[in-house]
């Protein structure tokens, strides 16, 4: 905050200059005041940005660079080997089947979660957009889970997925379906996590869709109505095309969010059974804090980062093409 205070001081002193030049508009005064204005702007600009910049440099830029350095060392929590070992960590990671398995799990989760998280959100928003009574009630029910901490969601679903005492298996039994081992079955566990995630976060995408739908100009629908287009027809020929940019953004944001999967998995299955759900973020966490291999863990972080950057670049290219 002190830096901002100094900027105010300099501002106070300099503020008399424009006043002077206004009273005496002779030519030599102008470049001088313009120069003063520019240096004042330089000072002010950096002073206003300074508080953010300090945090930005200390807690984002520095760890990002330091992490890169760490990934080139044999650093461990036990402090055993701090020396630079070059790209050995990366070479080891690329030959590490556990790394590939966890990366595969993350990608698998991303693929099978993104589709329902976008489609269900669209359906929810479209239903509400028709004009149901008691809007707040629907919004509350669809969006409320988004306000929960991951731990709460995990507690809810672990309880409902309980093979013997759980609500879901009981419901399956009632309609004559066999019981499922949900979180204990390697073939099902990831789907169980997707269901819990869908329940938890679909409300966010739903809100974005709802806001976008309400911004579609009414004239479009009026014209279509006059042409005799029904509600179904209007949805496919007006609503969906108008939502295309929103859909692109939601899909890309969802992919980026899904790639970061960790909380629910760690809390519900701890990555199991037998590593079947362990995402790459959990592998980073475990190599670093359970295995104490900070350097190796940092290297895997950067491989993961590379993946995120690749997806972001694709996002950038798509959105830029749209706006161009």
């Amino acid at each position, binding site marked *: 905050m002190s830096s901002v205070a100094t900027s105010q001081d300099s501002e106070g002193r300099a503020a008399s200059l424009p006043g002077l030049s206004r009273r005496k508009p002779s030519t030599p005064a102008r470049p001088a005041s313009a120069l003063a204005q520019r240096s004042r702007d*330089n000072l002010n600009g950096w002073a206003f940005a300074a508080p953010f910049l300090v945090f930005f440099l200390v807690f984002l830029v520095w760890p990002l660079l330091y992490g890169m350095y760490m990934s080139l060392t044999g650093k461990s929590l036990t402090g055993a080997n701090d020396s630079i070992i070059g790209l050995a960590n990366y070479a080891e990671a690329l030959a590490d089947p556990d790394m590939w398995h966890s990366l595969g799990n993350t990608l698998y989760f991303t693929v099978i979660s993104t589709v329902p998280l976008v489609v269900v959100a669209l359906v929810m928003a479209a239903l509400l957009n028709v004009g149901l009574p008691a809007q707040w009630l*629907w*919004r*509350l029910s669809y969006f409320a889970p988004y*306000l929960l*901490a991951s*731990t709460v969601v995990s507690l*809810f679903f672990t309880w409902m997925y309980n093979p013997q005492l759980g609500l879901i298996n*009981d419901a399956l039994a009632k309609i004559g379906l066999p019981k499922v081992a949900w979180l204990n079955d390697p073939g099902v566990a990831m789907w169980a996590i997707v269901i819990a995630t869908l329940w938890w976060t679909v409300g966010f995408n739903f809100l974005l869709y709802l806001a976008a739908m309400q911004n579609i100009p*009414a004239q479009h629908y009026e014209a279509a109505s006059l042409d005799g287009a029904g509600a179904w027809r209007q949805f496919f020929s007006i609503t969906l095309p108008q939502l295309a940019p929103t859909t692109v953004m939601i899909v890309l944001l969802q992919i980026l969010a899904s790639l970061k999967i960790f909380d629910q998995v760690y809390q519900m299955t701890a990555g199991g059974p037998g590593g079947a759900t362990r995402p790459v973020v959990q592998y980073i966490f475990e190599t670093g804090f359970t295995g104490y291999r900070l350097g190796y863990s940092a290297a895997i972080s950067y491989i993961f980062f590379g993946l995120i950057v690749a997806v972001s670049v694709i996002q950038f290219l798509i959105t830029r093409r749209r706006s161009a």
Partner: protein
Amino acid sequence: MATETLARPVASTANPAVRRKPGRRMTPGRVVVLAVAALLAVLWLVPFAWATVTAFKSETDAASPKINWIPPSGFTADAFVKVFQDGNIPLWTWNSLYTSAAITVITLVISALAAYALSRIDFRGKKVLMTVIIASIIVPPPVLIIPLFYQMVALHMIDTSWAIILPQVIHPAMVFVLKKFFDQIPRELEEAAVMDGASRMRIFLQVVLPLSRPIMAAVAIFVFIGAWNNFLWPFIATNDGSILTLPVGLQTIKSAYGIQYAQNMASALLAALPLILLFLFFQRQIIKGVATTGLAGT
């Protein structure tokens, strides 16, 4: 209102009549829509309902293999009493509240100042700064946990609230959101103040900020919800039971209570309660806030 239309000029052209066509009767199509919406709403409310019913059961009833929505031995608040006697939930709620509040306040102050500079002041290096801030939006927090942990150990901040708060105050996307809003405030409003010789800081505080309440509220809501629910970083940065936040504390409860299902659900509900209550009171603002900040990236 004036500033709201400023923020989203499209909103004024959208007619609310699209959503609510007056005088529409219940056609078969609308009945189907209502039925599907209701089915989804029920599915979305079941986990809450089941957790609530379980929390108000005795542990014996909760662990019964027969599913009962009305427990044989009646409802009881025993589980809540036990959870409160253990004494940690109120403490963790307080921890979550003040760390999230601190994160929100610091984020708002530093982001708004930076956004104002990027929007209004022509200073050398502005373009570079802008590019760096926008580029940093793509840095995923999980990539930073290893070096951040190491850094926090070096700063002797591990197991303090500072370790939870400080790394969470950088939201480059929110700087961008605020800058875009400031860009739309007419410069003429500031020129009068400039003529009067007001300093940049005074213009920011007295002219720009009062016009920016909706966007500040939106950013505050977004940051607060994120901080309140964040798990990974507080989980790594803290071990000491007395400074844990709610999400992290709950994780330790899960292993401590094990098969005491009623107490598990009671704890989960108590943890969920503050934000749900907040949502009931500020539904409009929260929905608007999430919708305006959401697309900027998380």
